[in-house]
């Protein structure tokens, strides 16, 4: 019996490979953004693409996010499939008007005659020691905008599969890349034919019976770690990785909560007006009679993103998650 040598790969490498494979398969795929060409991106996610496909296919643009996304709209109008890199979460804000007023609604405005197949890659989230405007979790802004898909991978394999799906999608996709997972490694063979993950399906990362942790992106590994630690407390936690915030997979989430009867939503984004409120409401509306306790949220504090020397107090960690699990009214069972 022979085994294929599977080398560990990083999420950044999987993302690069996804763009490379998409560009090779489809000449209309164009990568554009700040420093994506010669440098290969500040996170090196576009490394080698300009060299392999030329600067017309992987283009260093002027430093102007609205211009980048606005010209990508025009390119998509003409039949191209732009993959736009926003260098950091907080640097994507100048592009909001293009995103909200045009990208998200051009299909709707034109009764489906002018869809915009644009992928907007946004490195997001904290935990890398970035200063000030380099660590935002901006997903709540995006998921509040109808017409966008909002996707975020948590594993190396998903980074590849979901990015391929995003680029192939005929709708605009905001593709949120958890930057602190860029260098996470996983056994993933980049030379094997890769699967494209459908957008809109959550996945159970860890099965458990006691309670469900509902999470996504950078918080998935934290929740898995918390689930391991929870075994010492006698809790067997299930971890659901949403992968896609829009569309939202009510089915997988609710099936899990109905099994466990308890749920905690975990994300870095602020709690007030954050995705957790919507998720808790959806779960409560659909699973009320299965719930043993209110759905709780473990989120970032409702503060501007803190300076790096204080960010560990802000980010949801194992202890804060376990503390929330402990408040899920277990006394009713004893």
């Amino acid at each position: 019996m022979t085994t294929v040598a599977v080398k560990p790969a990083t999420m950044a490498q999987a993302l690069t490979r996804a763009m490379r494979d998409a560009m090779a398969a489809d000449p209309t795929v164009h990568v554009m953004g700040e420093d994506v060409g010669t440098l290969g991106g500040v996170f090196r996610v576009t490394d080698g693409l300009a060299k392999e496909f030329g600067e017309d296919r992987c283009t260093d643009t002027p430093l102007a996010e609205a211009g980048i996304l606005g010209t990508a709209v025009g390119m998509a109008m003409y039949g191209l499939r732009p993959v736009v890199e926003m260098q950091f979460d907080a640097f994507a804000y100048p592009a909001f008007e293009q995103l909200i007023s045009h990208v998200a609604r051009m299909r709707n405005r034109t009764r489906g005659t002018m869809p915009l197949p644009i992928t907007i890659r946004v490195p997001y989230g904290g935990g890398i020691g970035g200063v000030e405007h380099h660590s935002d979790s901006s997903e709540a802004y995006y998921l509040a905008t109808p017409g966008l898909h909002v996707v975020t991978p948590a594993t190396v394999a998903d980074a590849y599969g979901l990015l391929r799906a995003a680029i192939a999608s005929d709708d605009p996709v905001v593709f949120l890349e958890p930057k602190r997972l860029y260098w996470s490694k996983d056994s993933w063979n980049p030379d094997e034919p890769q699967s494209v993950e459908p957008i809109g399906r959550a996945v159970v990362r860890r099965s458990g019976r006691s309670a469900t942790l509902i999470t996504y992106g950078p918080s998935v590994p934290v929740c898995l770690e918390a689930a391991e630690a929870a075994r010492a407390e006698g809790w067997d936690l299930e971890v659901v990785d949403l992968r896609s915030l829009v569309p939202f997979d009510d089915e997988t989430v609710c099936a899990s909560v109905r099994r466990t009867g308890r749920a905690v939503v975990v994300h870095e984004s602020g709690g007030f007006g954050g995705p957790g409120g919507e998720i808790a409401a959806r779960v409560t509306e659909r699973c009320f009679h299965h719930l043993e306790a209110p759905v709780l949220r473990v989120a970032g504090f409702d503060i501007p993103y803190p300076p790096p020397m204080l960010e560990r107090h802000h980010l949801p960690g194992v202890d804060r998650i376990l503390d929330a699990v402990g408040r899920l009214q277990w006394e009713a069972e004893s």
Partner: protein
Amino acid sequence: MTVMEQRGGYRPSPPPAWQPRTDPAPLLPDAEPYRVLGTEAAGKADPGLLRRLYAELVRGRRYNAQATALTKQGRLAVYPSSTGQEACEVAAALVLQDRDWLFPSYRDTLAAVARGLDPVEALTLLRGDWHTGYDPHEHRVAPLCTPLATQLPHAVGLAHAARLKGDDVVALAMVGDGGTSEGDFHEALNFAAVWQAPVVFLVQNNGFAISVPLAKQTAAPSLAHKAVGYGMPGRLVDGNDAAAVHEVLADAVRHARAGGGPTLVEAITYRVEAHTNADDATRYRGDAEVDAWRDHDPIKLLEHELTTRGLLDDAGIQAARDAAETMAADLRERMNQDPVLDPMDLFAHVYAEPTPQLLEQRAQLQAELEAEGETP
């Protein structure tokens, strides 16, 4: 050891990496708005083109009047009239080839119609039965754009994409004087110049952004001067002189088509009517100013030129007016019919495939309609 000694040299002036990139002189706009009508240049203009421009101006003026009337009858939610600006609207459409693209703002319905769009479909946005009433690909007219200047980067991207594909396509993007203050104006012009994209930017300087005059909008010598900062030529033209606007825009289109890159054209014109039917222009300007511009009217200017030179007689004038009346009657009749609305359309074009959440909401609306007995 001092710092200088460590680095091994000392240079009192900057290294020669910096060089001036472009001689700005050829990019500078004309000192005065370029004119053709009433000047010697008019003699060289093609009489056939002038007569066509005239017919389109008359038709355009009538279209604006009819659309404004439709707002009073409740058939249009709102109409931003381009009365007085017809020369710009018409010339922008006429200088383009069939394969080229037009990127209009919300005041440029007339340009879209002059480009060949159905006059009723062009008013869908303003009637309010949908946002864009036409397939943009059919006549290569992008959706009428309300957020100011945001369509300009689209024009740049489309022209850039066409050039990458090797297609001979020029994009002409329209914006007003107020729109030049927007960030997207700056970013679009900068991208266009860096990419040498085949784009023509037409700024209709009609004097006002709703109520705010140009003096509160910019301190630039002219809006056309802004071109120089981006490294593209700026042109200044009398926006009420249809022959001049056509010539300047046609030059810019030719320049773009030949690979020369973008041009910024500022057309000096005037918004004779209020911002929209919902605006009251008497709050911010006087009659004398408006009257002066009414004397410098695009139709009067061209009619005077054509009749003086014997290129147009009373019968020709009447023929143009009759054609405009026929168009207006057709527009009136069709706009007086109630549009057919399907509430289920609300969910039809949000995504290629509706999300599970939208399917639930669609079912909710369906049930509400059935309860009301309104099922289509």
